[in-house]
């Protein structure tokens, strides 16, 4: 695990760095969620609205829409996929779950990429992901923090 300016970059994922999205491939499926940078930029969440499982999402489409302090924004997935499952229960129990645990309990959706290999090709992982995130964090001039209360 790499931590840079308080921002965790988990080692076992692929990243859409511009979209602040992590992707963990699980056989033919992919679990997606917001990165530490994403939850920090967003601030405390107050709502999330998921797309329905079974729905097909085009590349660049959104799997959910989140709200923090009156600001509404989408969570985009950079590859075409079908939504298999959404993490509704966790967010209903604790709307701040992504602010507390973005890489674990705060995952957003489990999707089936139309073409997993092509999906991976558009993402970065490992050292390349860490380096890309260092650059992005510096460009944004952001220091990450988590909700603990």
């Amino acid at each position: 695990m790499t931590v840079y300016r308080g921002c965790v970059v988990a080692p076992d994922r692929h990243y859409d760095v511009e979209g602040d999205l992590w992707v963990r491939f699980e056989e033919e499926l992919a679990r997606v969620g917001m990165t530490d940078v994403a939850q920090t930029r967003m601030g405390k969440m107050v709502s999330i609205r998921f797309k329905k499982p079974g729905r097909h999402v085009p590349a660049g489409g959104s799997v959910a829409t989140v709200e923090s302090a009156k600001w509404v924004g989408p969570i985009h997935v950079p590859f075409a996929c079908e939504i298999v499952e959404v993490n509704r229960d966790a967010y209903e129990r604790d709307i701040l779950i992504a602010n507390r645990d973005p890489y674990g309990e705060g995952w957003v959706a489990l999707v089936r990429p139309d073409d997993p290999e092509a999906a991976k090709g558009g993402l970065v992982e490992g050292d390349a992901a860490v380096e890309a995130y260092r650059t992005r964090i510096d460009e944004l001039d952001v220091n990450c923090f988590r909700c603990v209360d």
Partner: protein
Amino acid sequence: MDRSATLRVIDFGTVTPLRSQTLWHAIASGVSAGGPPTLAFCRPGGRYVSIGFHRSIDELDPEMCGPTGLAVFRRMVGGGPVYIDPGQLFFQMVVPADWATARRGETIRRLLEPAVAAFRDVGIPASFDDEIVLGDRKICGHAGGQIGGALVAVGNVIDSFDHAAAASIVRAPAPEARDEYLRQMRRFVAATPTDFDAFVAAATHRYADAFALDPFPGDLDATERRELDRLDRLFVDPEWVGGVEGRRRPWWRVKVTSKVWVTHARIDALRVTAAFREGRVRSVRVCTDDGVSVATRNVEEVMRRFGAPRIGELLEEMAAGAPA
């Protein structure tokens, strides 16, 4: 013309309630598709209710809102239900999504600060403190969001504000809860009568200056007009207006400003209504079903009077979470 360095300014004048929402959503689609940053203005020609993207329709009073009452339109940006009438001028700043700053709070501030300057230009010494305020009173409702590839900030200039009507649209669990909401709105939400045309001119200058853009008077393009037609249909679709089921909360609460909220809950036979400012109790009213009603700022007094220490615990819990 180099569109990237221009600010399209559209003053739609007085429009229908529906169009006062759909016009700027159509602009967002245009900016997403590469259109120029746009500053728009409109005045609704009638009364209606606007509800935030994530909020439950159950928050609205069913007699005041909906088929037998005021029209309800669900916007694609955040915040709670708001009452809108012709006494309000709306402005919308729509820019490409890649203009976002590192944090969303900073983005909304950046998109609203020129409006604050415009308020000041027309003689209203406003400031930004989570929202646009005059002293400790909110004078502009705002919301923001990313719609497609566009960032949108919306706000209003309030020439006159019908506090009672605004309080009436919310489904309140008890009469005293609605009364308290109205009382706190009258204290903390204010109109700032001004010349709308002067504000439009000032805002145009301030937004152009803040983003280093050349303003030019414009209109919707053909693509945006097609999107407007689609949005006109979408915004009256009952499924869109109905939205999704809201989150269940342990108690009722309604926001007055970013710092002030009113809550209501029941403890056995007692109904407890409390107003908070920045997490501190401003007032507490405890009512019983047999007509006893006590209002005070002294929590200990309420606990002694009703022999209910749980009221203290409840108020602490209520104070901890400001509503969105």
